[in-house]
């Protein structure tokens, strides 16, 4: 069986690729930088003896073309899952963001993942498949920083809630992970209040829960923090700077 991993060359995407290939699944890795993705594909093939293909795709492009992935899937075992750990934020992301950046962040974090889900849904339904989306604790409550990113991920969360509802009456598993701090390059230079989770730990949880449907917080501590931020009185919340 084959899994497609979108954003699979580094960070959580790479950890997922390692975890699923260690379990013997074939993979199609999709990312912006073909040099790194093809290296990872070869690495996984050598290490685990599975079939791995790599495709270059920029999620910010419109319209998005699935031709390259579709062509590769013809050479692969049946499609079982679609994992979308892709996403991007911007240091300049704040209220008043330029139109092109606003569109870019919305495309990568919301529109493209939805388009991918829609495109592969029929095939995944046929194979009792799995769809996994990834969001962020930034969606707990809108604030000045990461305004467009949080809005796009919030929209994606809503889309995955709809998908989970749909999955209940169809032969499909669907998970949406709300991620806290991960030990990736996004967090590398930041001074953070809470501990980082390793991408490998998250990938392990995703692997174990793949045949369920639901929304999960990782690390779990973030469920409490997320809810706390949501119920904070406005008088306090408006004074917070984070």
């Amino acid at each position, binding site marked *: 069986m084959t899994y497609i991993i979108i954003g699979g*060359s*580094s*960070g959580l995407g*790479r950890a997922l690729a390692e975890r699923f290939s260690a379990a013997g699944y074939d993979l199609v890795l999709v990312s912006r*930088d073909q*040099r*790194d993705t093809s*290296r*990872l594909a*070869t*690495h996984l093939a*050598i*290490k685990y003896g599975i079939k791995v293909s790599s495709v270059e795709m920029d999620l910010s492009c419109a319209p998005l073309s699935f031709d390259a992935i579709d062509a590769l899937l013809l050479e692969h075992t049946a499609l079982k899952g679609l994992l979308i750990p892709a996403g991007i934020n911007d240091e300049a992301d704040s209220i008043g963001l330029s139109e092109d950046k606003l569109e870019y962040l919305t495309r990568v974090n919301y529109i493209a993942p939805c388009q991918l889900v829609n495109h592969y849904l029929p095939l995944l339904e046929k194979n009792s498949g799995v769809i996994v989306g990834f969001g962020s604790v930034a969606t707990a409550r809108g604030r000045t920083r990461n305004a467009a990113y949080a809005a796009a991920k919030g929209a994606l969360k809503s889309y995955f809630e709809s998908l989970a509802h749909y999955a209940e009456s169809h032969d499909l598993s669907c998970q949406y992970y709300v991620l806290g701090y991960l030990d*990736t*390059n*996004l967090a*590398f*230079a*930041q001074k953070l209040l809470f501990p980082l989770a390793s991408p490998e730990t998250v990938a392990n949880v995703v692997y174990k829960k793949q045949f369920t449907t639901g929304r999960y917080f990782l690390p779990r501590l973030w469920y409490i923090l997320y809810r706390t931020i949501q119920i904070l009185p406005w008088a306090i919340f408006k004074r917070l700077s984070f």
Partner: protein
Amino acid sequence: MTEAPTKQTRFTSFDGTVSLSTTHQRPDRLSHLEAPGSTTCRIARGGGYSYSASSFGENSLVQDMTRFNRFIDFNPDTLTLKLEVGVRLIELMQWALPRQLHFPVLPGYHLITVGGCVAADVHGKNPYKDGTFSDWVKQLTVFHPQQGYLTCSRHENAELFAMTCGGYGLTGVITDVTLQLAPLPAPAIGLSQKRVNSLEYAQRELSACDADIAYSWHDATPGSSFGRGIVYIGHWANAAARGRQMRYHPMTANSRASLPISVWNRATAKAANTAILLHSQYGKDVTEKSILDASFPFASNPYFHMLFGKSGLRETQFLVADDKIGECLESLKQLICDTGAPTMMLSLKRFKGTQKSLSMSGTGYLVALDCYRNNLTDVFMKNLDKLMLDMGGQPNLSKDSRISQDIAQLSVTNFGRFKQYLFDYDGKRTMRSELSNRLGLL
């Protein structure tokens, strides 16, 4: 082109004696390597296990290469494996052993990266038989900020290849390495221990043996027990390894220095060495060990290094030619016993190396010496430098964090040639570390 985020990090050499704060990034894709400006001074860092500060330096961007740990190509016909430099030795061996493959030159700690091994041209348990790490390197790719990606081997860009193996990252960031693997001769190693009463006896034992593993360990505390030790001789064995696989303890330069004070002094060092000798007396003549346990003795026993505490240790290694080793060992004994030097343990290995860079080259005996730190340490090390120069010895720059430019010029065989090459190849001297600054390679 995206740039990897940067932060200020305090780095410490593994021996705990050099520490400074500089800009640090952890690239995880090739574009991150290329993104910093071509004139930004930088140095690559692997696992951070060099005793000298060769992977960080003042005003030099440290590029942590541990995320570049992918296997890129394997040719089953030639048994060559191309991999990225951040692959750790344990990952290499855990891949190779189930495929009945082996890599012969393994330094004593499992988390050292392949890139670090190339940069320091490290040696294993029997360098006389297996040579040094670079003898098993077929090809390298080096990224230099001004020159781009360069492929080099003994046949292509041969000078760059020779200078990069044992060049401490000063020719550029090594991105991938093609290694020659060997068929696995047997599933285990039979390791025998022979007690000896002197360094000279151990040296004779080592000179007479053609084993797969051959080295000695000695009590180096001043006094009547000086030189007592054990010669370890290992051969491939078709028996299964005895006992459980040892538990490996990850250790970094920071965790090594977690104790606020050093436990080692003359009394504790003597007691520990006596205990090791007594233990060996009651052990079996030959023990079958797994290849990993025999190759990575410090992986399961971090305590020796940790007990040096925050103040750290001084280690020195130098190579002495065959015809000088007898005189050298005698002078060394005299120097240590006469001055009450803070020496703890000593090790001998027969050595063969052929590099042309900053790494040790030539044939002879490797003398390794560990000292705890007190008010005599620096004076002793200076006297030791003089002894090494008198004996025509060559220092191992990755093991001694205080070798000066003057000493290096007088003792490192290819120092002048390396320096000339470096300035011809990279006039702006983009790749810099504390080691290169200390050696005047500015």
